[in-house]
């Protein structure tokens, strides 16, 4: 039997562990690290209406349907027909299971007014009934709900207590895994009759609290002899699939991280984020004051995700899906086609529908069944209406943890109430997220514009610039803001500045060409001047040349004349010269 159970377990233990029987209840087996102790009784206690009966019945039904272990359900409070009817809505067909001889329901009726106690007795009848029921279907699981009713029907406490002790010993001998339910008692006792005294192996406490008019169910494993177990209070949910317990705080910070990127759907925003977009499996917070386009950013992201043939789950806490689809059409984001393609799923619920934990469990369940790549929560600030800021934060930590484990990218939108952004950290979530985009109103020059910047983005280069965020009927775009001599300009001021610049340019070009022509003219004048000087110089030079030539000629002629004269005077110049040497 033990091996059989181990086979069914999700987790494989390497060290010796007491044998456990998985309950099949969503999440409970994770908390108890495998289930409740095999072959021993477990006590489930809690106040009225906290889900004891349902949890124990689900244990039996899941045992039959998932683990092929027949079960006996002995009811002391509800008649079998009522019981069967109550759980039909959960898809448990008790009548069919009984016909298949896998389930045995036995209603024990005790009415004090009909009973007279005339002396010594015992509860052998109960043993015979239970023994017969177990043997007739080969039951491995037994539920006694709520055995304490015996105390209201019978008065002899001494006998009852002795018989209960005998019953639990007997159940152990039978080797059945049993659940005993008990009503929560006054004061410090877990059950009215102190059943925990007899059932000491495993005690699970259920609780049903109403805080701010919203009810939350919680579960706690009070003790589990010989086994590790989560000791926190875990929220649980009863819905059409039965009970789901969320083992939220058992998560560790050991998740895988991805370096893959995922586009935000706004090219300009991707560009700001190292030209690639968000990290896959990361978390993104978009916060801003009212009407700054947070939902539009989220819708763009959803649109882009679906275009990549990935799945997106959109939790809307403010608007209905139809409203979002209609509104986003106005900025050419057609979400309806993705809904039709079943790539996009909306899940709209009013935050006040149920408690925070219940929301978390509900989200957890939807995420597990839809298996999205991207989850959007719009807006998380609405959740504060049902819980305190710290509770919301705790819940979101759990959600982010869970999503990161599943490598799902998540985008939150948050409404900031005051414009002093650094003071309000959006429910303290900003410290948890990987990327924080801030959209804010910039009121300037008689108009309101949107500015966007990245407050942080872990592990990637990102722009530190404020971008103007424009929503047009073509979609969302980010524009570089104008940095002028008077500071940052946006909106029509930016446009005006641009125009002004354009005018200036034209004027300047004009001025420039005038100056050019002026210079040209001046150059021409100068050139003319140079030419005239040149010719003046030439004529002067010519004059100079003429004089020197004339002088040369005169000199030559004079010499000729002188030698001719010398010849005439018979003097021999050459001779004179030779004599001289």
């Amino acid at each position, binding site marked *: 039997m033990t091996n059989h159970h181990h086979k069914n377990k999700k987790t494989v233990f390497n060290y010796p562990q007491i044998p456990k029987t998985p309950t099949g209840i969503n999440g409970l087996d994770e908390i108890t690290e495998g289930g409740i102790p095999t072959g021993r009784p477990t006590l489930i206690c809690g106040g009225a209406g906290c889900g004891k009966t349902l949890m124990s019945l689900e244990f039996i039904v899941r045992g039959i349907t998932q683990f092929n272990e027949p079960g006996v359900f002995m009811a002391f409070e509800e008649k079998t027909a009522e019981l069967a009817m109550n759980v039909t809505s959960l898809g448990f067909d008790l009548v069919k299971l009984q016909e298949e001889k896998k389930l045995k329901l036995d209603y024990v009726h005790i009415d004090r007014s009909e009973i007279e106690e005339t*002396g*010594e007795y*015992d509860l052998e009848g109960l043993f*015979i009934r239970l023994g017969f*029921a177990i043997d007739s279907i080969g039951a491995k699981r037994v539920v006694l709900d709520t055995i304490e009713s015996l105390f209201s029907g019978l008065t002899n406490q001494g006998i009852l207590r002795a018989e209960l002790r005998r019953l639990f010993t007997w159940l152990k001998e039978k080797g059945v895994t049993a659940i005993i339910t008990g009503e929560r008692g006054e004061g410090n006792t877990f059950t009215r009759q102190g059943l925990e005294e007899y059932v000491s192996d495993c005690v699970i406490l259920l609780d049903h609290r109403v805080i701010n008019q919203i009810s939350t169910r919680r579960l706690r494993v009070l003790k589990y002899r010989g086994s590790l177990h989560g000791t926190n209070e875990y929220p649980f949910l009863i819905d059409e699939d039965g009970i789901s317990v969320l083992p939220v705080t058992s998560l560790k910070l050991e998740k895988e991280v991805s370096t893959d990127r995922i586009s935000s759907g706004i090219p300009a925003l991707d560009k700001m984020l190292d030209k690639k977009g968000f990290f896959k499996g990361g978390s993104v917070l978009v916060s801003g004051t009212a009407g700054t386009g947070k939902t539009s950013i989220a819708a763009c992201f959803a649109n882009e995700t679906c275009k990549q043939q990935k799945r997106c789950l959109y939790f809307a806490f403010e608007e209905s899906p139809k409203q979002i689809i209609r509104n986003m059409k106005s900025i050419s984001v057609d979400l309806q086609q993705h809904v039709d393609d079943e790539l996009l799923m909306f899940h709209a619920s009013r935050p006040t529908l149920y408690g925070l934990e219940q929301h978390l469990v509900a989200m957890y369940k939807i995420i597990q069944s839809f298996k999205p790549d991207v989850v959007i929560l719009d807006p998380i600030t609405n959740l504060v209406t049902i819980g305190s800021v710290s509770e919301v934060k705790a819940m979101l930590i759990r959600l982010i943890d869970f999503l990161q484990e599943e490598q799902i990218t998540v985008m939150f939108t948050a409404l900031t109430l005051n414009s002093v952004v650094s003071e309000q950290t959006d429910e303290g979530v900003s410290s948890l997220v990987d990327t924080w985009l801030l959209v804010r109103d910039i009121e300037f020059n008689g108009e309101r514009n949107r500015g966007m910047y990245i407050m942080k983005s872990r592990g990637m280069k990102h722009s530190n610039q404020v971008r103007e965020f424009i929503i047009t009927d073509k979609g969302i775009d980010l524009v570089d803001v104008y940095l002028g001599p008077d500071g940052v300009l946006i909106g029509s001021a930016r446009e005006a500045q641009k125009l002004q610049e354009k005018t200036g340019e034209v004027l300047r070009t004009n001025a420039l060409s005038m100056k050019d022509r002026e210079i040209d003219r001046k150059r021409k004048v100068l050139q003319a001047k140079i030419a005239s000087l040149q010719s003046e110089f030439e004529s002067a030079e010519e004059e100079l040349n003429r004089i020197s030539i004339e002088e040369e000629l005169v000199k030559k002629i004079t010499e000729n004349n002188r030698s001719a004269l010398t010849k005439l005077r018979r003097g021999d110049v050459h001779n004179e010269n030779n004599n001289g040497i």
Partner: protein
Amino acid sequence: MIEQHRVTEENNLVSEDIYRLRLFVTGATPNSSRAISNLKDICETYLKGRYELEIIDVYQQPLIVENEQIIALPVLIKKFPFPERRLIGDMSDLNKVLKGLSIAANT
């Protein structure tokens, strides 16, 4: 081990006045043995001739335990006259047995 004591005797009784009793016991356990002998004494003393007693060992017929809604044993079920009553225990408390059977102690 079914014993039937059907006594229809001298005082011509209408059948409605006959007590129909069923005693469920668990074999020969002390409680059961005491219950049988105590009950027989009481019946003979107070209901002589107008009772019908069936003694059933539940070990022999485990199914009957569920059908009769039996938890505590031994148990005497007064099927008639109405209202149906259950007397659990070894029938040692005479007053309670008589009260349960709606018999006045001095009749």
